[in-house]
């Protein structure tokens, strides 16, 4: 069916906008409604992925207007990440039931679900569009809904964190919009494939270089690559845990995914070479891996630890893109999806623990492994995944990245990669130590009970995905193979 593609993004956006109206009389309706929509998006994403596997990339001209006049929606192998997006969002919705009932007033619940659905629609739209301006619009939908989601539960830190996030996001958005304007002025089109074709014959290096650098910088701010990360830790740690999971697993990926989308536009340009840009990306990625891991080491708050490790993991992805060979970019591509699964597991598990105990520092949470065995088991699986031990889902990405570093003749990057993994292990071992091997520092810990089923189930499903995704790690790599080959440097 041709309409799956436009509807995949449109349905959650419209349904999200309608949620407050639908749930006006009965706030309890909001969650089932949102769940149904997420399930539908998942079905659509699976359908679309099936088609891309069978037929290769395909397009849908919006309103019947073919490019370059109309907006082109395009589903290629990278877009298959929509499956992961829908899955994580769906599990977050399931999880939100018991969690948000405590965190929010009942009358605000519909607004929360509305924002989550809009966020989901924005993400799906972002990965399925072939139009540069459209890409920007979806990015803004994702960003604006994210700012609101951070602040949704109120509290002391969250509104400030949301404001900081908003400032960083707004500046980077303005930069990206400006660069899109430059590209439009140069080529007269906004379709990414067309821009690529027309830039090939462009002769002025300065504006192209400006656009390339500006887009890169703007997108890297969205991804919180060190040293552009300052907005992330507070925003991700102070948001309600299901929101943290969405932000850390999916929303930060907008930046790195955007890089994979905009770089092909500059592939055929004669007057500007991409190689120096890739070199900068590789170094920034390596820096981010180490810096994120080191910063995480000094945290006591488990959600802050998780937030800093996101910075480290974004470093892996950017390093992989910067290596500019097939293996490195494959590693980056699959780590985008794999890290989403891992980080969602970790944030939801940590959220369940915080929800049940009311505590969030390592010291106060000592001994929680004995009273919440299943949640902590899932958390442990997530920990081993984020370190990248085989056969978990964290391993394939690191494997490809390290092979890519060797192929690029840069064994130093392979060493940095592994050093990052060891550092990560050091700080996550502290979590496991506190949870399992330290006697409780507070008496109240003994009366804590395991999380309710609606929270436990998504966490366990995600933990199972952490294992399954590693064991079946070659499928995603094979899936995105053709898309990698089309990237500049990836062939």
């Amino acid at each position, binding site marked *: 069916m041709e309409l799956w593609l436009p509807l995949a993004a449109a349905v959650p956006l419209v349904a999200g906008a309608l949620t407050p109206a639908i749930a006006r009389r009965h706030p309890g309706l909001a969650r089932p409604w949102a769940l149904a929509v997420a399930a539908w998006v998942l079905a659509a994403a699976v359908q679309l992925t099936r088609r891309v596997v069978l037929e290769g990339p395909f397009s849908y001209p919006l309103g019947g207007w073919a490019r370059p006049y109309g907006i082109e929606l395009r589903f290629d192998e990278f877009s298959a990440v929509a499956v992961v997006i829908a899955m994580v969002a769906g599990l977050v919705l399931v999880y939100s039931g018991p969690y948000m009932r405590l965190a929010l007033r009942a009358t605000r619940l519909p607004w929360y679900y509305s924002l989550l659905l809009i966020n989901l629609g924005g993400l799906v739209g972002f990965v399925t569009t072939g139009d540069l301006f459209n890409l920007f619009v979806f990015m803004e939908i994702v960003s604006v809904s994210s700012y609101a989601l951070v602040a949704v539960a109120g509290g002391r830190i969250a509104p400030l964190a949301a404001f900081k996030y908003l400032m960083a996001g707004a500046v980077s958005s303005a930069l990206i919009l400006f660069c899109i304007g430059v590209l439009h002025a140069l080529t007269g089109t906004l379709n990414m494939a067309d821009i690529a074709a027309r830039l090939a014959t462009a002769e002025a290096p300065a504006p192209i270089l400006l656009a390339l650098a500006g887009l890169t910088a703007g997108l890297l701010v969205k991804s919180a690559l060190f040293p552009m990360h300052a907005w992330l830790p507070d925003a991700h740690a102070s948001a309600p845990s299901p929101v943290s999971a969405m932000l850390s697993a999916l929303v930060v990926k907008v930046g790195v995914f955007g890089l994979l989308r905009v770089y092909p536009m500059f592939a055929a340009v004669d007057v500007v070479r991409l190689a120096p840009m890739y070199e900068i990306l590789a170094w920034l990625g390596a820096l981010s891996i180490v810096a994120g891991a080191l910063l995480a080491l000094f945290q006591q708050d488990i959600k802050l630890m998780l937030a800093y490790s996101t910075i480290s993991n974004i470093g892996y992805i950017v390093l992989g893109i910067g290596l500019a060979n097939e293996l490195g970019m494959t590693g980056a591509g699959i780590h985008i999806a794999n890290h989403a699964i891992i980080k969602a597991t970790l944030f939801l598990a940590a959220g369940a623990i915080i929800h049940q105990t009311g505590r969030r520092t390592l010291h106060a949470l000592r001994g929680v492994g004995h009273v919440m065995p299943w949640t902590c088991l899932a958390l442990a699986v997530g920990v*081993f995944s984020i370190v990248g*031990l*085989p*056969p978990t889902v964290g391993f*394939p990405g690191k*494997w*490809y990245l*390290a*092979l890519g570093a*060797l*192929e690029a003749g840069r*064994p130093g990057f*392979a*060493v940095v990669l*592994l*050093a990052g*993994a*060891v550092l990560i*292990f*050091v700080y996550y*071992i502290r979590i496991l*130590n506190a949870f*399992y*091997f*330290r*006697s409780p520092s507070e008496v109240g810990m003994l009366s804590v009970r395991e999380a309710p089923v609606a929270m436990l189930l998504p966490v366990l499903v995600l933990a199972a995905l952490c294992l399954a995704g*590693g*064991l*079946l*790690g*070659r499928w995603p*790599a*094979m899936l995105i193979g053709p898309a990698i080959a089309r990237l500049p440097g990836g062939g």
Partner: protein
Amino acid sequence: MDVIDLRILLAPAISFGCAVLIFLLGARARWRRVLALGAAVTKFIVILSLLPGSLAGKVYVFEVLEFLPGVGISFRADALGMFFALVSSTLWVLTTVYAIGYMKGRHARVRFFGFFALCVSTTVGIAFAENLLTLFLFYEMLTICTYPLVVHDETPEALRAGRKYLAYTLLGGAALLLGMILVQSLAGTLSFSHAGVLPAEAGSGALLATFVTLIGGFGVKAAIMPLHGWLPAAMVAPTPVSALLHAVAVVKAGVFGILRVVHNIFGVDLLAQLGYASWLAWVAAFTIVAASLIALAQDNLKRRLAYSTISQLSYIVLGAALLTPFAALAAVVHIANQAFAKITMFFVAGAIERSTGKTQVHQLAGIGRTMPWTMAAFTIAALSFIGVPLFAGFVTKWYLSLGALQAGAWWFVLLMILSALLNAAYWLPIVYLAWFRTPAAESAPIHEAEALLLVPTLVAAAYVLLLGISMQVSWLPFSLAQAAVRFVAGL
């Protein structure tokens, strides 16, 4: 001849299933005992049932899944793997019986026996690994599964030892991962099915980096000096765990990995050509002497045992590094010889500690009169380490000396003699103290350790004698070792 057989998958699966059931059973002690023993015996029988085929030259294989292109989890029971699996599963039966007796009345027994079973599961996985990735996977799992056992007492000292253990082994693991990635990018395969996969024309820099990272990675668990620091620290663990660490699983995983690297990754011919092995031989020689000297100065019995282990392990490393068939034979058989003798000693140390509370060597005056059977077992093990003929240790020294002469390195024969003298210098005083000195207090009546501790000790000691006397009996592990060496030497 390769035969597909599910039994080699069954062997690790039995222990794994046992561990899961132990966790699910919770506090039901009687069922836990039945389960632990039942699984140990079943697994022993399964591995034993593979022995006739293995002796007849069959190689059992089972490919589980290929989770990245070209690399996957797959099992292969060749002669060397069978040898290691047989030794570890025999010892698991003994250690389980012993642990049931030793851990009576202690805390967190569910965790203890669960992780204990997991350790043995991963050890068999290491033994049957078909490629470096599968080996690495189980090797890292072993690190993680032994950690809860090392910190079992949850005292600050235990946690400190646990941290040290993790720091050493995780850095080793990272080095190993790097080496594995180097092998994959140089050779394009990680398989152990060949007598060497690395191409000689790969360039000496890359080959040296591979050798250093792989040997360094495995060398941590093999406790080659100066990578041995974790081993004495880990003595804080309960005695069955020390026995497991020192005799069955952890250190043997290290030396087994070194054997695999020397024999199956590099291959004897390539290493002889490159000359790296002679450096390794000198490092091993240094470790043998230095660790013995340190052992002389230890008054704590378990610490003396730990340094003796470090010294004995380097026999295996030396045997592998000499690159001659006789030396390789010595290396393989010493896996069993050291294991049985060392586990006897640990059982004795634990039995003495449990029934008299004594942990220091100088307290042992006259202990032979109160615990005659226990100390008889200790004496047998001590004589084996010294290398008295008709004891297991002699076989190692004999073949290692022959191998050294084959390699034209007569000075290592002198090293054997020196090491025998040093072993005599730190074991015979204990034997003398135990039998020929009167106890400080009034003479106690015979007070042996309980049967659950005594019987495994005696069986292990009997095995030391058996290995020394009847090497030529075809169903003993020695013939497997010969088969392993024939493969390595290309005979």
